[in-house]
């Protein structure tokens, strides 16, 4: 290949000049998003840190979490801490009294979401979490983690629709089974505390 000395340098200069000019009118060349002034749209699949979903209006009563501690066990960096509620007699209730996630440890891997059999824990997309207090403010408590189902629907519409359909089907099946049982026994069993509203 014949190569004129100096030509490669000139080609490079031409290329940078093209980019210089192009950066003024070709949006593909200037990919910078000037962050605080403008933001990228949040992708539907985006995940940051986990949140707890509750149905209805009351974050305490509507919480889907039953405190089964599967997520606590499966969490690779072990950033979830759960203490179950006990009633006055000391009997363990099927809901968490404490549910803490240390987001300074969490690596956003989403395994807790995948292993949860109750669709109670989902990924939040909130990412502006910087704080000056790295010990207190980065340990998210149950109250901060609890988010209504509507919020979840807004963040992940496709996924939430699937979950809602699945839960509705499960609730329907359960109601059908219950009705059957009721009809058979004509007894009234206590309604499980963690069952969800259809």
């Amino acid at each position, binding site marked *: 290949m014949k190569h004129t000395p100096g030509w490669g340098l000139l080609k490079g200069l031409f290329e940078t000049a093209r980019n210089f000019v192009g950066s003024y009118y070709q949006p593909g060349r200037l990919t910078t998003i000037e962050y605080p002034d403008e933001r990228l749209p949040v992708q539907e699949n985006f995940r940051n840190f986990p949140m707890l979903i509750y149905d209805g209006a009351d974050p305490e009563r509507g919480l889907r979490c039953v405190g089964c501690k599967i997520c606590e066990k499966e969490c690779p960096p072990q950033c979830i801490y759960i203490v179950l509620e006990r009633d006055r007699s000391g009997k363990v209730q099927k809901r968490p009294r404490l549910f803490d996630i240390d987001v300074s440890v969490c*690596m956003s891997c989403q395994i807790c979401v995948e292993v949860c059999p109750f669709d109670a824990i989902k990924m939040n997309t909130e990412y502006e979490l910087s704080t000056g207090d790295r010990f207190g403010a980065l340990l998210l408590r149950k109250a901060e983690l609890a988010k209504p189902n509507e919020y979840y629907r807004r963040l992940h519409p496709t996924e939430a629709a699937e979950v809602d359909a699945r839960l509705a089907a499960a609730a329907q099946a359960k109601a059908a089974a219950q009705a059957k049982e009721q009809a058979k026994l004509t007894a009234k069993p206590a309604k499980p505390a963690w069952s969800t509203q259809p």
Partner: protein
Amino acid sequence: MRAQAGDLEMRGAFAAEPHGGGGRSAGSDAGWGAGAGHEWVRPAEPVGRLEGEWLEVAMGPHHPSTHGVFRMNVALEGERIRKLKPVFGYLHRNHEKIAEGTTYLGSMPYTDRLDYFCSLTNNWAYALAVETLAGLGVPERAEYLRVITGELTRLLNHACLVGFLLHDMGTMGTPLMYAFREREKILDLFEALTGARMMCNYLRFGGCRVDVPAGWLAGAQRVVDEFPRFLDEFENLLTTNEIVLARSQGVGVLSGALAVNAGITGPMLRASGVNYDLRKVDRYGIYDRFNFRVPLGEHGDVYDRYMVRILEMRESVKILAQALKDLPPGPILDPKSKLRGFRPRAGEAYGRIEAPKGELGFYLISDGSVRPYRYRVRPPSLINLTVLEELCLGHTVADAVIVLGSVDIVLGEVDR
């Protein structure tokens, strides 16, 4: 060497050394190298009349061109490197031992963090090892998705690597910025698909985690279609630049024989003229369905390593175009696979793929429990780094920097 020469040693700065010289005090004689059991590069006393004294410089761990926290202890004669000792371990995070204490699935997000540029290929190698161990199959659509994400990963890794390499040659970051511009587009795709830009955690044993969202394939097609234009631009910018040619040709020559003996893999091996690409050798996944070629270098110098990567990107674009065209519908996860209580039968398995940096392998021994009994990574970065001294001797400091750049290391993988 006279004691006064210690004046110029950066005394005490090396007190916290991760390897060797355990009982050495910070203020020992000449600062470093004097400690017991610490073999350092100091030459034997009398040297030739005009050879002059050797200047010992610790390049790194805080050096802009060591691609992370890596250190090269070099002995210089003028600017010529007479000895070089790589020191690593600053980013050791106990990956393998942690993996032995956690479930099979629990290690998947940790593999993202090995070579943090290529989380998807890391996932793939690990998934392949576990699938071999557990005898899981992978649905066809998932195989295609793996190829698509894997080749996109190769594109972004190689683009950034050549960017970094040219940046090390002193281009003020221009090619690097162009590479990052393209990487941004691929990362957007990753984010839309997997939910994260770098720590994707996308593959599962027996398939993938989620299916592609609506419109993703069209977006990927667009990126793939535009990528050759970026490559042309990049090559126009510097491939025939006389300074790049002068800097990189004949520098850091690695012979094919040495490369094979040292276990070098990946583009670095192919730049030395050895035809060995696991995509062709193992034909893992569905790589036998695609039509692509393997570019080979001839001289094994820095320029060949640069060009082989550029040409590999062009081949990857071809693979991507074919995979995006042929992607079949269907499930994305083997129905036999399960997330919780996953217990592969006792035995051992080695899964390896052609990661962008070379052969990435995971070796697993299972005792039938939920945790691997032994977990071992074969990191291409580390093994490719072993020949660094060979490549650098006799060259200058400036060459050492670009030789290191052309090896393509990520310290997360080297130190694990």
